[in-house]
């Protein structure tokens, strides 16, 4: 019985995967994001200098030679800093995405499925979405204090309402579907209906949202640390590196451009990935965004 | 000389499986003031023929692959979009199947009628307005002056089709192409719209091409009929002849499909099977697979239009023997 259900589903997954791998945007996005992700994962193995080791003799070295990406105003290896920065960006982005996947789904499903909770949850949701995103993130980090963990919390508070709203709207549509109504009539419990009938079908728009969210999270984290309210210097985040590079733009523009390009590649990779996923998984979403 | 002459018109569409002809070797002509009915199932190429004449097909994917269209002595095929503009409106007007979506929802109907006139004639605003009111009046919109500032969503389907007609006739075209003008309307409204078209023909004296899948509409309006099947003309005759003496088996089938008022459902059983897709047309006579009278030889070659009587042609190898 279980197997009979399982096999066509798996075949469908494989078909989706094939369509994704044929999608030009998706593949180029996967490539760009893949580079960054691999570099981030291999950070301990591909850097030999501590990203925070000062070496005043070697400051402001241009990229090339022994120093692949050159050095900054304190003689720190920019290669080490940018690579470890990639790891931090990935950790923060993935954490925000994970928290969104959990709490966005919970809140969205609760609001969409239980009409009684809907008004209350969505009012709070709307209010949180009414704040300009970065301003709210700054205010929250300033309250919690600057640290990597707090950046993750702040960005989650900013973005979970947006994820919840997307989950809610698919749940509302699915709730009215005949097969769900049939399950209700057959006496299935709420939890079972949500888990087996509604949430699996609400996944597509959510996955699309999460890939864009990863991009926003990486971008916002860099913005917060650039403004000085993110992870505390000298933590090597791309935003911190660029912020420190501001004073030397004339003499050492690479301090800004290298992490900037890394950031851009990551965000663009994720955006392309999201576009591809949207085209393949959920063509209806094409007009929004 | 006739008003409109279509010669060997072939319109091709680029599709995923290469280029296919939606319309092939279509020829006919039309005199001033005449009403020509083009009849066929949806997908038979009748709308594509009309849009090819108007130059309204999106290109790419569509292109006129062969043949030509001459209107009032001028060759239309090959004209640029800009050169076509003065023809559309004062030369040929067109109305469409869906009055609900054919009007722009964000402009008032008065504005949409007046802009048509303005595009072709220089007139002061007051006169433009007067012309628009007069046109609405002619198509039977009550209290026309007051409805001028209404938006399409404030009108019923029948009224919108009347507005479409007013718009198409605002520049006094010599030819009106009506593409399934009544299909989307209620039965009672359909008759009203057809009556209106006939009255306006008498008043303005324009020629009309009426495109429909409904033989009843043809019976009400057309002087002459062109029957299309799978992109080709298969029979052409004066309307009376078609109803009395259809020569092509397909036309006969169509006539048996005419829904009667006494019976609940249309008797579509008359023609088994469905219209072949343009990319999968059978060899030889395209109707052969659905034809009760088909013989093996029917699939060997495409039958040409053959003159059976003066002004009556049909494209069937067995037309002569079958109608005996």
């Amino acid at each position, binding site marked *: 019985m279980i197997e009979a259900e399982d096999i066509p589903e798996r075949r469908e997954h494989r078909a989706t995967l094939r369509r994704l791998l044929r999608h030009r945007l998706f593949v180029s996005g996967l490539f760009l994001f893949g580079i960054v992700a691999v570099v981030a994962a291999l950070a301990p193995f591909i850097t030999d200098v501590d990203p925070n080791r000062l070496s005043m003799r070697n400051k402001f070295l241009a990229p090339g030679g022994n120093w692949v990406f050159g050095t900054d105003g304190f003689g720190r290896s920019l290669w080490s800093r940018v690579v470890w920065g990639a790891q931090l960006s990935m950790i923060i982005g993935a954490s925000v995405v994970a928290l969104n996947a959990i709490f966005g789904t919970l809140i969205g499903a609760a609001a969409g499925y239980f009409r009684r909770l809907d008004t209350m949850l969505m*009012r*709070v949701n*709307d*209010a949180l979405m*009414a*704040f*300009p*995103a*970065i*301003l709210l993130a*700054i*205010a*929250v980090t*300033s*309250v*919690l*204090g600057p640290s990597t963990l707090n950046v993750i919390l702040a960005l989650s508070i900013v973005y979970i309402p947006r994820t919840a709203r997307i989950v809610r709207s698919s749940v509302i549509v699915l709730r009215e579907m005949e097969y769900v109504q049939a399950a209700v009539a057959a006496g299935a419990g709420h939890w079972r209906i949500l888990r087996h009938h509604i949430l699996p079908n609400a996944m597509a728009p959510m996955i699309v949202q999460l890939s864009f969210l990863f991009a926003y999270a990486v*971008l916002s984290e*860099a913005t917060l640390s*650039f*403004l000085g*309210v993110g992870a505390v210097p000298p933590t090597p985040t791309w935003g911190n590196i*660029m912020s420190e590079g*501001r004073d030397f*733009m*004339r003499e050492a523009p690479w301090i*800004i*451009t290298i992490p*900037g390009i890394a*950031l*851009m590649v990551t*965000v*663009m990779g994720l*955006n*392309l990935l999201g576009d591809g996923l949207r085209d393949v998984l959920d063509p209806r979403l*094409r*007009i929004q*965004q | 000389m006739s008003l409109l002459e279509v010669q060997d018109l072939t319109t091709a569409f680029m599709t995923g499986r290469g280029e296919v002809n939606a319309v092939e070797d279509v020829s006919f002509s039309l005199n001033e003031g005449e009403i020509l009915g083009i009849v066929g199932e949806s997908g038979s190429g009748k709308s594509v023929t009309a849009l090819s004449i108007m130059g*309204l097909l999106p290109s790419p994917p569509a292109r006129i692959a062969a043949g030509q269209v001459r209107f009032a002595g001028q060759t239309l095929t090959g004209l640029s*979009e*800009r050169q*076509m*503009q003065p023809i*559309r*409106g004062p030369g040929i007007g067109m109305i*469409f199947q869906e009055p609900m*979506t054919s009007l*722009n*929802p*964000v*402009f*008032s109907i008065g504005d949409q009628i007046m*802009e*048509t006139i303005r*595009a072709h004639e220089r007139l002061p605003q007051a006169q433009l307005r007067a012309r628009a009111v007069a046109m609405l009046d002619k198509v039977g919109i009550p209290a026309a002056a007051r409805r001028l500032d209404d*938006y399409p*969503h404030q009108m019923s389907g029948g009224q919108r089709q009347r507005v*479409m007609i007013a*718009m*198409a006739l605002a520049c006094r075209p010599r030819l009106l192409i009506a593409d399934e003008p009544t299909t989307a309307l209620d039965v009672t409204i359909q008759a009203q719209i057809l009556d209106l078209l006939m009255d306006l023909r008498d008043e303005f004296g324009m020629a009309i091409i009426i495109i429909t899948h409904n033989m009843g509409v043809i019976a009400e309006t057309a002087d002459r009929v062109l029957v299309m099947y799978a992109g080709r003309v298969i029979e052409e005759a004066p309307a009376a002849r078609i109803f009395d003496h259809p020569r092509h088996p397909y036309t006969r089938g169509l006539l048996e499909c005419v829904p009667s008022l006494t019976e609940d459902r249309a008797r579509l059983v008359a023609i088994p099977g469905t219209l072949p897709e343009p990319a999968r047309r059978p060899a030889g006579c395209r109707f052969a697979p659905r034809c009760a009278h088909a013989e093996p030889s029917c699939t060997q070659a495409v039958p040409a239009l053959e003159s059976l009587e003066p002004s009556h042609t049909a494209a069937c190898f067995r037309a002569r023997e079958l109608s005996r």
Partner: protein
Amino acid sequence: MIRLATRSLLSAIPVLLIVSLISFGLMRLIPGDPAAAIAGISATPAQIAQLRQDLGLDEPLLFQLLQYYKGLFQGDFGRSLLLGKGVLAATAERLPVTIGLSLYAMIFTLIIGIGCGIIAALRQNSWVDQAAMMFAMIGISVPNFFLGLLMIILFAVKLGWLPSGGYIPFTENPWGWLQSTAMPAFSLALLQAGLLARITRSSMLEVLRQDYIRTARAKGLPGRVVIFKHALSNALIPIVTVVGIIVSLLLSGAVVTESLFSLPGMGLLLTQAVLNRDYPMVQGGLLLVTGFLVAVNIAVDMLYAVLDPRVRYD
């Protein structure tokens, strides 16, 4: 129309209520003793106690909340510790700079975004379309502060065409304002322009397929009338709904842009307030900016009704 206005105003009330509650809650959520956190590490216990009293943090929470709302209704949004003046006065001084910058960026956004979107849609699948969409993709992927920095390096440092900082108020010297704010406005605009180009393109493609476009062509209207009157007026309707989102993104982005180019706007004010632990300013400023944004969204709803007669007459 009036019903619509009342409806959007009414729906804004619960949002504003919750927004104000969140703002109120923020300062009270500081882990540990908020007064000590605000006063800083070097403060003496007496100073901390004084501050606690000044901010009313020694009162019961419910009483603080009542005082807070009483203040809001009297136009008292708290006092900035850093500037020593009312939050409302400080906002009134700084918000116009941000609004000016956002409007300037909005103009770039609309021209670039709608322009690229239309051209891409009209030449769908051509190289022009692909180039425009590539540009849009870059637009939504370049962080605005990185773009700002690149522009400073190029136009101010290398070429010396534009000033890299220094704000000239519009009221003093309009031309100077246009020049000095050009780089910030452009770097702020690109993200939204990219988004808008993508939305405009898909909306335009959708509209160009509609029957009424064929009708307009069948009437013999010139191409520009078909595109700019018949197609664009319909394509703009869904675009208007994202204007609210764009304004929100602009205000968000302005925070960074203002810090980068040292423009004395609301964003710079709030960033400095955060960095100096001026929580009353953060709390009041956040509330005011968000209130402004809610008002913009109501205006956008009205604009929607103006553009779409189907909404206007319902």
